[in-house]
C-alpha cells in the first residue's frame, strides 16, 4: 500500500522537477509536482486508498522531517542574535496584520450574503 503511494509521490515530484528544468521555471520542483498530482486527482475525481494512506502517514511525520533542516539555524547564531528583535517584531506584526486583513475580507464577503452560512461569498 504505502509503496504504491510513495511511487506515485516520487513520480509526481520527478515530473515537477523535470518540467521546471525543461521550461526554465525558477519554481520548487516539488511544489510543481504537487500541482501536477492535484490536476490528476481533479481529473480522476478521487484519491486511491494507497495514495491516501501514504500521504496521511508521511504528513503525520512532517514535523519530524523538519527538525534536521531547521537545526541549521545553529550555524547562523550570530545572525540570529544580531537581528533577534527585528525578526520577532516583523513576525508578530505581519502575522497580526495577516489575520485582520484575511478575517475582515472573508467576513465582509459573508456579510454581503447574509442568510447563507455556508462560507465566504457562497
Amino acid at each position: 500500500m504505502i509503496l504504491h503511494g510513495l511511487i506515485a509521490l516520487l513520480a509526481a515530484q520527478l515530473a515537477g522537477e523535470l518540467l521546471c528544468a525543461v521550461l526554465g521555471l525558477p519554481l520548487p520542483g516539488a511544489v510543481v509536482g504537487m500541482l501536477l498530482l492535484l490536476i490528476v486527482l481533479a481529473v480522476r475525481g478521487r484519491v486511491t486508498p494507497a495514495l491516501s494512506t501514504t500521504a496521511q502517514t508521511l504528513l503525520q511525520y512532517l514535523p519530524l522531517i523538519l527538525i534536521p533542516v531547521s537545526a541549521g539555524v545553529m550555524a547562523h547564531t550570530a545572525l540570529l542574535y544580531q537581528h533577534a528583535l527585528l525578526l520577532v517584531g516583523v513576525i508578530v506584526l505581519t502575522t497580526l496584520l495577516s489575520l485582520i486583513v484575511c478575517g475582515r475580507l472573508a467576513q465582509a464577503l459573508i456579510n454581503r450574503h447574509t442568510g447563507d452560512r455556508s462560507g465566504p461569498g457562497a
Partner: protein
Amino acid sequence: MSLPDINALLDASASFDLLLTLLTYQLGLWLYTRSGGHPLLLPVWVGLVLVILALSLLGRSYSAYAANSALLMSLLGPVIVALAVPLYEHSRPMRQQSLRIVAICGATSVVTAGAVWLLVAQLAGGDPTLAGSLLPKAATTAIAIEIAASLGGIPALAAITVMLTGIVGGILGPGLLRRVGVTDDAAVGLALGVSAHAVGTARAFEISPRCGAWAALGMSLTGVLLALTLPLLGPLTAH
C-alpha cells in the same frame, strides 16, 4: 576513548543522529500530549531545541548531523507532493467559491509580503538574507524552506520564522479576530489557516470542524500561491 574519537565515531554513522532526532521528537510528542496540546510545546519545537542543545554540548558540527540526517531530509520532496491530497479533499466541497477564496488568500499574501518587505527595508536596510528568510513566513514550513532557498534566504531561518508565526497566530489569532468583528467560523478558519498555517489550523479545528476545514484550505492555498509567485523574484540582492 577520548572525546574527539567519540565525535569521529558519531560522525561516521547515521545511527546516533537519527536516534537523537527520533527520541527528542518522541519526547516532544509526549510533552505536547501531557500539556493538553499547548502551542508553546509543539513537538517540532521541543525536538529542535533538544537536538541543537545536544549537538552543541557534544561539540559536534551541524554539517555532520545534516549529512547523517539525509534519510529524513530526502522525504521533504514527497511530503510536499503529498500536500496535494488534503488540498484536493478540502477544496472539493468549496469548488463553487474557489475564485473568491483564492482572491482573499492572494490579497492577504500580497499585503503581508509587502509589509515584511517594507519592515525589512526600513529596519535592516533591505538585508536580502533576512528578507528571503522572512518573506515565505505564511507558507507551510516544508514549502517555505524551498521558497527561502530560491530567494537566497536561509532555509533553516525560514523554518524557525514559520514556526514562530504559527505560535503567534495560534495563540493570539482567535481572540484578535473576535475583537475586530470576525465572527463567522468560516472567516475565522480561513484567517487562521492563511496567517498561521498548521498551528492555526489545529486551533481552528478546536473551534469547530467547519472552522478547521476552512483553515486547512486557506493554509494549502496560501502555500501554493506563495510557492508559485515568490520564487519568480529570483535570488534577492542588496541594493
